């Protein structure tokens, strides 16, 4: 298992390097000369040249990249061109809400998706199964923003049941809880389809396995067979596949945050890109990429823990 995880870690090194290189290139796009900004409009050319030298801007580009990497590793992502605050400060405020939204989505969508998939597999070929398949096909064919707009229009506006703009407060307060329902519902609804589908496939495979027939033959109740013998084994592929869908979740989160004005990293990234705020865009994309890497790493470890056979595959 350690071998497997080490391999994954080794793989993330070039990825991290690529992400950093991208962040560096993005900062090269800043139209103005950073040294001239620091020196101020009245500065003499000599002073600007002096500052350039101090900042390492006159060094070869590779050295500059090394300086950039050192700065990022120390947690310095620069200053936003628009709000003039530190990028790390803005990101620190946005990470919490994004994590909150993802959690609030997964906490109901994953169990429901797994339940739907299992039901479909057990009642294979019957009406319930077809219903679940229809739901999941519709789910993977619907854009996130459509679900968001519909929920917003009916539940938020027409029936005035729940707030639909911004974040009301922390998750444990009543306002916070009320304001996260619609975004979490939106993001979860597109996620149920793929999960149900994967679970169904995995459960169908396990249902025809020998050990399930043995369990039935020894007279176990059908409920015990399904929950303990089928679902437990079916969960292994489902966990990996949920990990593979992390990108899907991330994309959905970016759109959901934008629709509901949710103050998360995705909305920050989109806003920064549209406003050509390169340092902020660089920081937000760096954080999103890092989050994606970490999620995949965690899923890999979980997979190795759930399925001892991974070890032998290396």
């Amino acid at each position, binding site marked *: 298992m350690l071998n497997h995880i080490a391999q994954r870690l080794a*793989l*993330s090194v*070039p*990825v991290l390097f*690529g992400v950093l290189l*991208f962040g560096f*290139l*993005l900062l090269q*796009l800043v139209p103005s000369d950073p040294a001239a900004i620091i020196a101020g409009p009245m500065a003499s050319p000599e002073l600007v040249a002096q500052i350039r030298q101090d900042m390492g801007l006159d060094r070869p580009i590779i050295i500059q990249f090394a300086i950039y990497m050192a700065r990022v590793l120390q947690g310095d992502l620069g200053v936003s061109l628009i709000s003039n605050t530190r990028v790390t400060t803005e990101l620190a405020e946005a990470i919490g809400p994004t994590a909150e939204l993802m959690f609030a989505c997964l906490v109901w969508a994953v169990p429901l998706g797994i339940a739907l998939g299992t039901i479909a597999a057990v009642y294979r070929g019957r009406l319930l199964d077809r219903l679940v398949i229809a739901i999941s*096909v*519709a789910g*993977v*064919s*619907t*854009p*996130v*923003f*459509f679900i968001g*707009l*519909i929920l*917003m*229009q009916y539940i938020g*506006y027409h029936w005035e049941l729940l707030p639909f703009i911004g974040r009301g407060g922390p998750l444990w307060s009543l306002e916070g809880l009320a304001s996260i329902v619609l975004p979490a519902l939106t993001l979860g609804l597109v996620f149920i389809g793929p999960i149900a589908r*994967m679970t169904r*496939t*995995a459960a169908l495979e396990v249902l025809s396995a020998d050990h399930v027939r043995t369990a039935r033959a020894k007279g176990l109740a059908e409920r015990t067979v399904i929950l303990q013998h089928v679902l437990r084994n079916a969960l292994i*592929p489902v966990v990996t596949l949920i990990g593979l869908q*992390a*990108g*899907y979740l*991330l*994309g959905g989160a*970016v*759109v959901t945050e*934008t*629709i509901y004005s949710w103050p998360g990293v995705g909305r920050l*990234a*989109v806003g*920064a*890109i*549209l406003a050509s705020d*390169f340092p902020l*865009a*660089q920081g937000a*994309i760096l954080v*999103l*990429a890092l989050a*994606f*890497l970490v999620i*995949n790493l965690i899923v890999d470890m979980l997979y190795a823990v759930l399925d001892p056979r991974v070890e032998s595959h290396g």
Partner: protein
Amino acid sequence: MADLTTQAAPVTVQRSWLSPIWRRILGDKLALVAAIILLVIVLAALFAPWLAPFDPYETTRRPFIPPRWSEGSLPQYWLGTDGQGRDMLSRLLYGTRLTLVMGLASIVLGGGLGAMLGLLGAFYRRLDPYVMRSADILLSFPAILLGLALAAVVGPGLTAIVIALSIATVPDVARITRSAAIVVMGQDYMEAGRALGLPDRTLIWRYLALNCISPVFVFMTLRFGQIILIGAALSFLGLGVRPPEAELGMMASLGRDALFFAPHISLLPSLTIIAIVLCVNLLGDALRDLLDPRMRNM
């Protein structure tokens, strides 16, 4: 003798994988309906300039006209007008066109490159580790992140989206192609072709590529729907096509401000996207069941 073999191979391959598809789709009612709807949508998009009753970019003094079935509609605007008084039907036709172009360009570029890499990796085993490691690295960037990053670098626009979606398609297609090609590489006819002294080019394109086309084709069909969804989401965020050009995702986003009193401006383009993606997915599922039942897990 060599000529005879090379000419005969593609013909038999095509006959054996194309004709059952049509027979199967004609038999599968759901897939048939999906195919017909998709065909109508594609034709409508193709002939948009002739079908559109109005100029899709021309603003008028009659904004927020609802569609024909609601109160307060005008007879000349079948699907109403948007916030700037532009005819919705005409914009939908042009928007569908651009959405389909975006998806097709990405799948052709990214899928083509991915398939080529997969073939080369399977054929030249020395290249294989490099191809697979690059695919692993590329897989670490979700499409939406690539889209955001490219929009940040080259500025929002159709080019950024198509490049991002193409890059995101490459690794998956490369993997699928490689795994199919490795099976084909073990077949006797590859050995026979080599023994005949055929050049690598012929072996790769005539023998290898044509024989792994079906799983790759199925995968690309299913991927096409996803690509359209991601592309539409990126343009919904404002990172895609620039106004006044119309693209379905962007149109849905434009109607957000008027959602509560003129919902059709947002919902009609969204529904068009759903129709396209749903039909593509249903067709893809039918193709997969027919051509490659092992891929059900994907």
